């Protein structure tokens, strides 16, 4: 089942005289339960793509269907409504509210959707235990390590069982041990809960946990890799190879 379908999306910044096109006609479709990475060099438009798909940023042109609903036509308020019901977010900077405890942070999406307290508690226990942060529930974010913070952030993204989870460089600020921990948890949750995850990363190791990797360059899709039945190691090599072709910072001028 297609859960997200984006066709010919364009995004440009600046005014009429000084326009910078960041996305130049991206077509993309995502199926239920997929774990997808978007890779590409700096400035290729990865994060913009994620922001546009997750309705945080407005499109210049094109259409995005999530669950059959046209996102570009929704008003600000409806978008907020949509985000709270169907989307989850994990950010590189964790973006936890430092005045709230771990539990309060994780329960945020449920309190917006007015879930009953017992259900909320139940869900919290479930997801917090899966991510191994149940014991930390009364701690404040600045008492946590980076990995713990990111798992809290992940728990917050998963707790209301959204259709799609958007993750922007979730491992960017983590050491390799915490990073692989987090990725393992993410792919576990992906399989167990059939949660769809769209992740932006420039770390090939992180990308190798995914089922599909989309490479973009200069605002367009360059190529895609499917993991299929390959092992993670083999898939990692594929990704490295493609990245080599793609080039780090080079520009065709």
């Amino acid at each position, binding site marked *: 089942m297609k859960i997200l379908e984006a066709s010919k999306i364009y995004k440009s910044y600046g005014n009429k005289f000084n326009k910078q096109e960041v996305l130049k006609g991206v077509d993309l479709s995502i199926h239920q339960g997929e774990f997808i990475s978007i890779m590409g060099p700096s400035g290729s438009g990865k994060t913009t793509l994620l922001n546009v798909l*997750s309705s*945080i940023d407005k499109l210049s042109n094109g259409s995005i269907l999530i669950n059959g609903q046209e996102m570009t036509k929704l008003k*600000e*308020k409806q978008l*907020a*409504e*949509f*985000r*709270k*019901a169907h*989307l989850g*977010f994990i*950010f590189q900077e964790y*973006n*936890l*509210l*430092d*005045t*709230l*405890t771990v*539990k*309060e942070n*994780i*329960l*945020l*999406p*449920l*309190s*917006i959707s007015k879930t009953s*307290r017992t259900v*909320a*508690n139940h869900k*919290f226990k479930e997801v917090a235990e899966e991510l191994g942060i149940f014991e930390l*529930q*009364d*701690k*404040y*974010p*600045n*008492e946590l390590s980076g990995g713990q913070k990111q798992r809290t952030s992940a728990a*917050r993204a998963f707790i209301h069982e959204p259709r799609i989870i958007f993750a922007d460089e979730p491992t960017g600020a983590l050491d390799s041990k915490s990073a692989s921990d987090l990725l393992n948890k993410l792919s576990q949750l992906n399989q167990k809960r059939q949660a769809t995850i769209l992740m932006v990363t420039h770390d090939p190791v992180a990308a190798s946990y995914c089922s599909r990797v989309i490479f973009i360059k200069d605002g367009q899709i360059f190529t895609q890799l499917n993991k299929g039945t390959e092992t993670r190691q083999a898939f990692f090599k594929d990704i490295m190879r493609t990245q080599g072709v793609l080039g780090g910072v080079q520009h065709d001028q």
Partner: protein
Amino acid sequence: MTSKQLLFRNLRKNLKNYSLYVFALIFSSALYFSFVTLQYDPSMDVAEGSIKGAAAIRTASILLIAIVAIFLLYANNLFIKRRSKEIGLLQLVGMNKGMILRLLSAENFMLYFGSLLIGIFIGFSFSKLIILLLFKITGVEAIATLRFSTEALLQTLIVFCMIYLLIMLINHLFIKRHTILALFRVTSSTEEQIKKVTFLEMIMGIIGLLLIVIGYFISSKLFGGDFTTMTELFLAMVIILGSVIIGTYLFYKGSIRFIFHLIRKRKNGYLKVNEVVSLSSVMFRMKSNALLLTIITTISALAIGLLSLSYISYYSAEQTAKDYVAADFSFTDEAHASTFTETLNENGIEFEERSIEVIQVEVDLSQISDGDIEGELVEGTVLPVVSDTAIEHIDLSSSEVILSGYNDLLQNFIRLKDAGTLELNNQKFTYLGLEDEFIVSGYYTSGGLPVAIVDEKAFTKFLTEANPDIQKPSNTFYGIDIANKNQLEKANQIFNETLATSNGPHESQLNLSNNQKTNMGFMMFVVAFLGLTFLVTSGCILYFKQTGESEEEKPNYTVLRKLGFTQNDLLKGVQQKQLFNFGIPLLLGLFHSYFAVKSGWFLFGSELWTPMIVVMLLYTVLYSIFGLLSVNYYRKVIRDAL
């Protein structure tokens, strides 16, 4: 870019950001200037007249300087911290500290003296209005003229120049002391680390609440008869003041966090939308501002309290005059009374005249006085005694006595029971109770002692055995009431003209009432002036704090909006948060002043509620403006957050 361009660009940017600072600067300089103009205005001599007006105004102007100076220094401190990154950057690109200081000084100079000039202009144009207002309140009839006073200008300029130099000195120290690296970190280091509520904080929170309650409790007992000597009373006041102020400090330091912690604990991690924005943020931020908030609360309470008391006094001037002068005009000898009545007849003013004989008799109050009071007050008391024939609705038997017209202030030192035995001149009488009516003027009652009313027979007996040592020069009260109250003004004028030279103990109720209105009106005016300055400056400080806080919380709003909170959701939370931020200090200040006023208001007048509520409402309304302004600022921040 030359440094001149940089200067002007900064100035333009700052003018927009710090518009309220500029406003406060203009406002305080305008206020100060018009106040000083008042001080030097020749027409003020009339208003100052009999009272110690000049001293009051001078004291007030010094207080005004203090408030304005502290405010400007504090605001400057906030702003330089906010700009520390910019200062660091300028150093990074090669400017030395001297150059930056010069740049900053020049920038401040223009901002500061520009506002000062505008302020002086506004202050000048409003000074006439202010003088008119003062005359209206005090009832002084004089012509208010608009006069530009060079002395006032000079004084204002000198004072503000000193403040400016002080600010520059502090900026200089700030820049000198911080390394580039430190400058980049200044803003973040002022906020404390967020931790769990500690045991110490809980204890502090509980002690804070307790201290406040104890202070309130003692204040309600203050004039209840438990403290009778001056030393005890003074000690009690010091204890109240200390426990309330320390309590307030601990309240901000611990109680708020403790209470909010309990609320959150009860929610078990499940916070509603507006609680996320309000509760959690207020909980952590109030503590770091504890000292500031304590000062704001205490001075607010002081301002509200003083204003209420002077307004109570002003408001009940007529009643007080009635209590002290038992008729429209009161005389102590017949000669003066008849001169006055003749003049009244000549002018065709109708009146009623009455005379009451009063004798002073030694009284033993010990059996009807309540509570623990100093013996000397009770035993040696001399009370005025009148016959029941002088009062229409009272008829007593030969062994009965009624007291009437007891001053509220004195009641606190000698409290009376409802019934008992009273010894008059060593004869026992049955005491029947206390009436409200004031029968003779303060001249006979030693300023507020009750009058004893006895049967005609007993009265004649006292008359024969009266002790001449304790009698007043006059034993007859002559009261003259004007029949038509419209002619009272005219009668009063005649009174003032005919009796201007003889400064005997003759009194006019209207004069007394007007006199009190002038005195208290003047007090009220000065206190209101200071109160307003303080209100505006403290409101501005809270507002600046909030604008800084909103910038710091912007990333939080970004997260929340990404999660699906709408702008409206967040705004509701912010409104609630501002209700706490502005409401808690205000409410605490109101409570403090309420208890302060409640404990001693009767020393000032006869009506508590109306004047106090008027003052409190006015203060609340003016104060809320700053809350609303800050919500408006937050609205912008939230809108730009995504």
